[in-house]
């Protein structure tokens, strides 16, 4: 039963991809829309990572753009150093660059995860803001990586790769959250002392959540770097971190489908309102305030969107992710 459902889902994902590729090939999907769709994938990966740290494990982090920039510059650094050109070598170099970005970002995630053993709540949030800013300023002053003018790159990763990597991330997070590791993370969010008396190694899981979340941000950064032609430290500022947090909160802390929804809504809205730059932030702010009044737990709360199966893969037996 279970693998049948998964097969149907995979087929649906494949059909969607083939459809968009054909339509894009014929020019029926404009380049702007395709760009938005790629950005949606990047933001979904970012939101998934932050959701693991903040939504599931309960560690408020506002430095996610820092991890993203580390991944972006890590991947960019590989592409630059080996002077990768279009051609068959891409099959090797793109995964290599992306994985390198993921690993470097995850290593920094562990580094930032360690202080969480001592810091909680607001104090942790401040430390993560500081981390994001430090990364940005270091990059700004590193001539080898382009400094303030940034690092020009080629577009080697398109909609297709972004789409499949996004799906891979969803599967990864979904399985992690529904494993005993994920349950341990949720238990820490719910009540740290109780989790500790259950024999859950809270230190280990907090650091693990940071490492995986940061790794995903690194992946998103790597895709971004290889898609946008150019990366600059100023792109990965505090506002970017905040934007990702808003997506997670908007969708519902602790809901995978929620944060996917949040990422889609925010990215589409940002791009659609791009033609009115003056009032864009006003509209976004009004929407957020309204949201928080009428749905204070986000679009989804901690529940998951269920597919119309008898028991959809995004809703599990005895759903531990459920509840306010």
């Amino acid at each position, binding site marked *: 039963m279970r693998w049948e459902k998964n097969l149907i889902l995979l087929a649906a994902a494949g059909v969607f991809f083939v459809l968009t590729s054909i339509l894009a090939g014929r020019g029926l999907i404009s380049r702007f829309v395709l760009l938005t769709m790629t950005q949606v994938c990047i933001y979904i990966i970012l939101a998934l990572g932050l959701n693991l740290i903040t939504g599931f494990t309960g560690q408020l982090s506002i430095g996610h753009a820092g991890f993203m920039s580390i991944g972006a510059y890590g991947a960019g650094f590989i592409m630059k150093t080996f002077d990768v050109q279009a051609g068959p070598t891409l099959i090797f170099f793109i995964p290599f660059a992306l994985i390198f970005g993921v690993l470097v970002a995850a290593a920094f995630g562990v580094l930032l995860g360690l202080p969480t053993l001592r810091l909680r709540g607001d104090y942790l949030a401040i430390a993560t803001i500081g981390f994001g800013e430090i990364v940005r300023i270091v990059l700004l002053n590193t001539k080898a990586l382009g400094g303030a003018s940034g690092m020009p790159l080629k577009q080697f990763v398109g909609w297709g790769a972004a789409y499949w990597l996004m799906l891979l991330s969803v599967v990864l997070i979904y399985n992690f959250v529904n494993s*005993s590791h994920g*349950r341990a993370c949720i238990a820490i969010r*719910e*009540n740290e*002392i109780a989790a500790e*008396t259950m024999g859950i190694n809270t230190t280990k899981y907090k650091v693990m959540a940071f490492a995986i979340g940061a790794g995903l941000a690194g992946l998103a950064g790597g895709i971004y770097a290889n898609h946008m032609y150019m990366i600059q430290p100023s792109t990965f500022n505090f506002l970017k971190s905040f934007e990702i947090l808003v997506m997670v909160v908007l969708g519902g802390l602790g809901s995978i489908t929620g944060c996917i929804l949040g990422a889609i809504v925010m990215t589409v809205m940002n791009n659609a309102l791009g033609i009115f730059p003056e009032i864009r932030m006003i509209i976004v702010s009004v929407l957020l305030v309204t949201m928080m009044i009428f749905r204070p737990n986000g679009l989804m709360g901690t529940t998951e969107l269920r597919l119309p199966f008898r028991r959809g893969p995004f809703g599990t037996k*005895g759903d531990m992710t459920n509840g*306010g």
Partner: protein
Amino acid sequence: MLELENVHVYYGAIHALQGISFRVDEGEIVTLIGSNGAGKSTTLKTISGLLRPKEGRMTYLGKDLTAVGAPDIVKLKLSHVPEGRRVFANMTVRENLDLGAYQRRDAKGIKKDMAHVFELFPRLEERQAQVAGTLSGGEQQMLAIGRAIMSQPKLLLLDEPSMGLAPILTRQIFDIIRAISQEGTTILLVEQNARMALSVADRAYVLETGRIALSGDAGELMNSPEVSKAYLGGR
């Protein structure tokens, strides 16, 4: 089974436990009584590894506890029911119990123990799909104890199980504590309700500002004039 020797614990500059020594033997119910701030909860937290002693020795089943972290202490079959119940409020009763068995991998044994918990607390079985935060205080206490039993403890640390409960519920909880003890689990009980605690315990220690002031047979302490005056409201 458990032995503390000259244990000192600090909260920053505050000297919370000032050289505590006591022991718990297998099969006993031992209670620590004392007023607010005497260090009762601190003692339990230190035993279960949530706090670290600065000085002193703690041995449990012949092992040095001071060198073991909280997660591994649970593996040694020592379980702590923290003060104020601390159930996972957004999870169901069943999920709370599942987490109690977090370190176990024997699905069959877990199932058996779950049935046993439901036998001890029929209320929990009725409410197993209910979110724990919506249970009454007494039910939450039952859940907290049930959750601890799921880790198959040999020694159970109970911190203020009667806190905020009506007298009738308190009595129920104490009946359960007695039943758990009769099944062979050793119990170290911390209580404000000294009369209740002394009535169920074999031996007792009286804590006063981080020191053991009195110790002895529970029945004797119940009748001792000092305890009666200070904790039981006697003349």
